[in-house]
């Protein structure tokens, strides 16, 4: 592994800005790394080698001409394959969009290009972001760099795996029910689900509109904050985007400090189904926070137990409508003959995988006349109760903490035929998606049973994303100090 690949995004951008490294050289080394390891990790659906080098040359050109460089100058970023990107295909991990090249750019990726980032390729994901393992990808699963027999989490599993395997220092994901935090947790990296509306969804292929949140992955808290800051901000093209200043996440990441901070442990997130090694690391992390000066209390959020069922009504309902446009008429896979109706039906039958079909059926049923009030309507009421639980909790504490996911990375294939078991992976992350507030996953050690990474989840009120970084930076600094090296250095396999 070369020196450049081991560097953080912050270091790379500084080196490019100072002229100590060229964007082209950095991009080449990452492309080499991808070529070396991605046959096994399978993080990427598309490696944009030529395009990335062209972007890198443009950054170097700007520097040569003395023009100002962005905060991510020359830093490669891997992009989850549901951001519309000009010059690269966008498949959403689905056969129905195989080969589709968007004629327009998502707001988030355009902002990253403007910030000097080099979009290096598109990463694997559960089809249309529906899943927690990437096993629902139409193009086969990605693998966890810590242990290639394990899943990298999902749905943004390709992005998490790419960062953990040093194929890119940063990656973009989206979080709808935990799709950034859970893969970050099981891959031993940092991932943030920002406040809903803090990042534009324009050009992000929708799974569940009221939940989908673009967010950053990085190997360090500061790197993650740098990407978070570069991608965020109001966008008039997205009506649900918040017109407010971006929280000072980079500043917070530079000054980890929890002295005097009030931290609440969500009491509902423990007990049956939680792996002992996960709970052990979580408990230690809380003790660590207390030793750093935080005031820790236990907080009950009584409606969180209804979050999972509410989510599995709201998300599929919205998905059933969002995915209606994939009908073979205008773009993507077209199959079948005869009437328009027949072509639509045949194309959808051929193009969508089983989990997508399951959720479309669930959603169409939940929205149907006569059932709306009992299902979608009721789920929205539960959502309101969950928001109230958060409001009440944040009246007493500054942040909430919990494990990110009940277990470490599970074996590929283990839950593939058991949707309910798969859904439980998002138990702790879903309330934040339903309420629209912010949360982060930061590594807090390895589980004793399997030596696989465990993540600590920190949750903050809407638009208080900076608090996440303040806490995560403190945890990172203390734990890295204790271990004597970053957690990823413990990885046995490709991460080294």
């Amino acid at each position: 592994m070369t020196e450049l690949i081991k560097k953080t995004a912050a270091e790379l951008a500084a080196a490019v800005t100072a002229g100590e490294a060229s964007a082209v050289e950095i991009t080449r080394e990452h492309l080499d790394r991808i070529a070396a390891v991605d046959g096994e990790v399978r993080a990427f659906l598309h490696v944009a080698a030529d395009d990335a080098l062209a972007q890198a040359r443009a950054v170097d050109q700007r520097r040569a001409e003395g023009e100002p460089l962005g905060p991510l100058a020359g830093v490669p970023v891997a992009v989850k394959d549901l951001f519309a990107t000009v010059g690269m295909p966008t498949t959403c991990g689905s056969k129905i969009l195989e080969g589709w090249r968007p004629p327009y750019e998502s707001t988030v990726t355009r902002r990253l290009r403007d910030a000097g980032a080099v979009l290096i390729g598109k990463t694997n994901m559960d089809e249309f972001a529906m899943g927690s393992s990437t096993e629902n990808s139409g193009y086969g699963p990605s693998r966890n760099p810590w242990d290639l027999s394990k899943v990298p989490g999902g749905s943004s599993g390709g992005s998490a795996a790419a960062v953990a395997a040093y194929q890119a220092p940063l990656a973009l994901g989206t979080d709808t029910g935990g799709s950034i935090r859970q893969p970050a947790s099981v891959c031993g990296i940092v991932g943030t689900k920002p406040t809903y509306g803090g990042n534009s969804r324009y050009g992000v292929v929708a799974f569940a509109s009221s939940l989908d949140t673009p967010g950053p992955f990085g190997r360090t808290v500061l790197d993650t904050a740098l990407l978070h800051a570069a991608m965020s901000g109001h966008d008039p093209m997205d009506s649900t985007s918040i017109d407010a200043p971006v929280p000072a996440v980079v500043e917070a990441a530079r000054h980890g400090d929890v002295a005097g901070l009030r931290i609440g442990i969500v009491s509902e997130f423990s007990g049956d189904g939680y792996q002992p090694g996960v709970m052990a690391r979580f408990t230690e992390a809380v003790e660590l926070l207390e030793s750093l000066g935080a005031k820790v209390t236990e907080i009950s959020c009584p409606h969180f137990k209804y979050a999972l069922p509410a989510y599995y009504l709201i998300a599929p309902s919205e998905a059933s409508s969002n995915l209606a446009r994939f009908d073979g008429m205008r773009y993507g896979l077209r199959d079948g003959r005869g009437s328009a109706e027949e072509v639509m039906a045949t194309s959808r039958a051929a193009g969508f995988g089983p989990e997508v079909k399951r959720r479309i059926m669930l959603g169409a049923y939940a929205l149907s006349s006569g059932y709306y009030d009992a299902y979608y309507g009721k789920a929205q009421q539960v959502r309101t109760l969950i928001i109230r639980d958060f409001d009440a909790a944040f009246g007493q504490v500054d942040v909430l903490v919990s494990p990110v996911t009940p277990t470490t990375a599970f074996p590929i294939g283990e839950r593939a035929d058991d949707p309910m078991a798969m859904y439980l992976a998002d138990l702790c992350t879903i309330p934040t998606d339903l309420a629209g507030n912010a949360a982060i996953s930061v590594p807090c050690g390895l589980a004793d049973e399997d030596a696989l990474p465990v993540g600590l989840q920190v949750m903050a009120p809407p638009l208080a994303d900076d608090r996440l970084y303040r806490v995560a930076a403190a945890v990172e600094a203390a734990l890295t100090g204790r271990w004597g090296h970053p957690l990823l250095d413990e990885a046995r396999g490709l991460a080294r």
Partner: protein
Amino acid sequence: MTVTYEAALQKYEPVFGLETHVELGTVTKMFCGCTTTFGAEPNTQTCPVCLGLPGALPAVNERAIEYAIKIGLALNCSIASWCRFARKNYFYPDMPKNFQISQYDEPLCTDGYLDVAIGGKTVRVGIERVHLEEDTGKSLHVGGSTGRIQGAEYSLVDYNRAGIPLVEIVTKPVPGAGFLAPEVARAYVTELRDVLRTLNVSDVRMEEGSMRCDVNTSVTLIGSGTWGTRTETKNVNSLRSVERAVRSEVARQAEVLDAGGRVIQETRHFHEDSGVTTSGRSKEEAQDYRYFPEPDLVPVAPDADWVKSIAASLPELPSARRARLIEAWSLSELEFEALRNAGALDAVEATVAEGASPVDARKWWLGELARRANDAGIEVSDLPITPADVARVAALVAAGTLNDRLARQVIDGVLDEEGTPDEIVAARGLAVVSDDSALTGAIDDAIAANPDVAEKIRGGKPQAAGVLVGAVMKATRGQADAAKVKELILERLA
């Protein structure tokens, strides 16, 4: 059909309701920045948003909200202080997202009315709701005989129309119109069109599809106190068709009921050529649209002050104008309707403003000019003559410079674009010969040529003067004032 409309009305009470879709005349579409010009090359006015490309998101056009509020206020509706868009889900190739962004149980405007004058009385048509939605693309079915999708070889879709803002204006059921139901339905659509035109929110051209009507009709036994099953007739694309569709559907339903059958709740298709409706898909097997609040848009919450300022800026509405003009011009309701139906209201009012009397202005626009427009197959307002021209012609007649026959020649000149009335009078030498001395010679000649007639007049028979007047008019090529000529003849022979 064996049961006529007239026979049906002996036994049944008709009830109708209308759902009218109106394309708003905004410069850009409902949820994106594409232009809305009619008739552009297919698929040239599109973008990722109105094509529903994966990842694209809608953003509300504020101007469309403003227009819809204007319409709601003009129709005496309450304007919601908070409402939402909803998705109406169904699959059709001309709908890019396979759902339409519309409004469902939270419309922008509710519970209003529109007063419709008909045959000298006023019928109040209740307005259930006015809501906003996006239009679909337009399908062209190629290869079939009917132009419909059934039997077509292939279909082409033009997405230029997709995303154009539409308002849907839904009436409450209108009972009690009795025999006049078809005419009331037509008068309602006419009045609505006038209101929308006055508000300047749409070009309301039914022939171009910027205003489209669905007609709901039911019949019930007179005095039964119950409501019949309604049908929804689509493809009703002219004012005349609205009337014919109600008439035909009432007769058809009466025939079904008379034969012991029951009316099926269904969508029916109106045929312009035959004037009858045929069955479309049955509502009983209709699709479930799975409405739910549009999660890509935030709720619309019009500020109360904004609504107030819109209300304050509304122009004079047709009903107020009707009352004002009937009063000012001393018209009967029927005279007013004749003017409105001729499409001559604006022209007459402008002509009066240019100084003509209301009687003269109406006479010219409803008479000579209406005839010319009719001959040319155009609207009276499209004639190449201005209200100022007409007022000037009327003034020349009133001053005795022109008689009616000469005035018509002047109008010919204006329509042929020869110039202003004064220029044409001068160029064609059309002024009435009113100089007494210029007429004296012609009168002397006429008397000399008709001594017997002159004798009769002298003998106390002034009605014989017509012959002499005719001779003088002939001699002056019509450019004399006949009344003046007669007066001079009688003086001479007194």
